[in-house]
């Protein structure tokens, strides 16, 4: 698999997308740092980019890449290699390039102007969400044969997780306001990677407000390392399952 990955990586790293996306990240980083040198403000400006733009680009790029490489994938499948390896070499290359763009794009400005733990967490979330949405995009791609349809599904994932889902949660909280909903709300948040990333950031940026919760459950959750640990492991599960499911479908798919 590493042999395959080596070549997929080489291809994707040399692509125009990798260059442009990294450049975009550098520009974003520079402009944010120019606007304010206050780290908490930097974090806030970055938050929306990491939670909205990064997943969107990841989803679209991963889908497009999958279909652009479809014929080559087919040729790979006619070679004496495992399907799993073909799949992994493709998806890992995409995930790698998306993550590196963030890491390099922000890394350089950060070395220049400094960073704090919040900004670093934010980068981690950006990378996690890239991986998750690349996984979801591959899932969308293996579920259909049509590129346009796959992009449609990927976009739906994005809109669902970044907007519709929260609307649903807000509606639920609003209509069941009289009940103790802390646990329900938190578990709902855990079922959405964008929300999860956001809550991890809230735990850094707005811990004071979160501690205002009446439930002892929340006090415990937000006040301790347990909360961070739990949400990080959940994030990890989110990184794995779309990719795993996509691989299962890929293994049984007709090309």
């Amino acid at each position, binding site marked *: 698999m590493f*042999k*395959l990955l080596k*070549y*997929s990586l*080489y*291809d*994707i790293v*040399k*692509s125009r997308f990798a260059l442009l996306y990294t450049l975009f990240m550098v520009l974003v980083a520079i402009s944010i740092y120019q606007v304010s040198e206050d780290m908490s403000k930097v974090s806030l400006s970055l938050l929306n980019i990491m939670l909205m733009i990064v997943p969107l680009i990841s989803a679209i790029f991963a889908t497009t890449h999958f279909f652009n*490489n479809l*014929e*080559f994938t*087919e*040729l790979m*499948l*006619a*070679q*004496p*290699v*495992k*399907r799993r390896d073909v799949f992994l070499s493709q998806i890992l290359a995409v995930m790698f390039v998306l993550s590196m763009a963030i890491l390099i794009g922000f890394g350089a400005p950060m070395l220049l102007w400094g960073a704090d733990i919040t900004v670093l967490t934010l980068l981690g979330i950006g990378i996690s969400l890239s991986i998750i949405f690349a996984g979801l995009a591959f899932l969308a791609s293996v579920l259909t044969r049509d590129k346009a349809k796959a992009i449609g599904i990927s976009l739906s994932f994005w809109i669902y997780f970044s907007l519709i889902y929260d609307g649903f949660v807000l509606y639920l909280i609003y209509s069941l306001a009289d009940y103790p909903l802390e646990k329900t709300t938190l578990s709902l948040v855990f079922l959405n990677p964008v929300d999860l990333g956001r809550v991890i950031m809230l735990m850094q940026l707005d811990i004071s407000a979160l501690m205002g919760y009446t439930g002892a459950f929340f006090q415990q959750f937000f006040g301790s390392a347990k909360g961070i640990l739990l949400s990080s492991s959940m994030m990890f599960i989110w990184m794995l399952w779309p990719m795993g499911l996509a691989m299962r479908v890929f293994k*049984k798919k*007709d*090309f």
Partner: protein
Amino acid sequence: MISVQQIHKKFGKLEVLNNFNLEFNAGKSYALMGPNGSGKTTLIKIILGMVLPNSGEVYVQGKSIKGSFSYRSNIGYMPQIGRYPDNIKIGQLFSMMQDMRPEVKNYDLELIEAFGLDKMMDKPMHTLSGGTRQKVSASLAFMFGADILILDEPTAGLDPMAAETLKNKIKKEKDAGKLILITSHILSELEELTDHAIYIHEGEIFFNDTISSLKEITGESNFSPAIAKLMEWSLKKNTKKTELTHV
């Protein structure tokens, strides 16, 4: 060498191959024909493991291909459209393919040299013309001296000189005792390269015999009209096929 037994394949509700049986033997060269959508591409893909049948078995060199991938090291495959990662260079593509077959030590570089690809190893794939990419595909199919060669429209997009080079190579491999499976729309090419014709119609085998017996049955002395007649029959009368099938 390849035995396709009771293959059944559906795409959704569409039956593509139904109770499909075929044998391919070493040292022979088969022309796989049929109108668009007849199931010939699906058949090739099933043999290559790219499409998984709903039921039935395919044996390659006596072993079932189910759950196996190593059997493919004995197959050289040339796809109809060769598209490769844009930024990989020709040389890298070759070494990548070689990496996938670590057990093969001696490479057949004849086509690479004949096509002059050895002089452009540093060119990224996206700079290549369609014809050149086709040359790359052909070179890859023959590179590992595989016992089975599956060629999907091999000469499409090649200039006449390159087409001739490729045809000579195919003939040479056939004479060397390889099993060759070709699909093509160029009938003259099929006549030249193959000795056995398989005609698939709506997922079933309509004709399967030597080219000489094809001519005999259709009463035509030339290959093209014989095929045309076969096609005509297949469209007109589905009953006739039972009489003509030599399975």
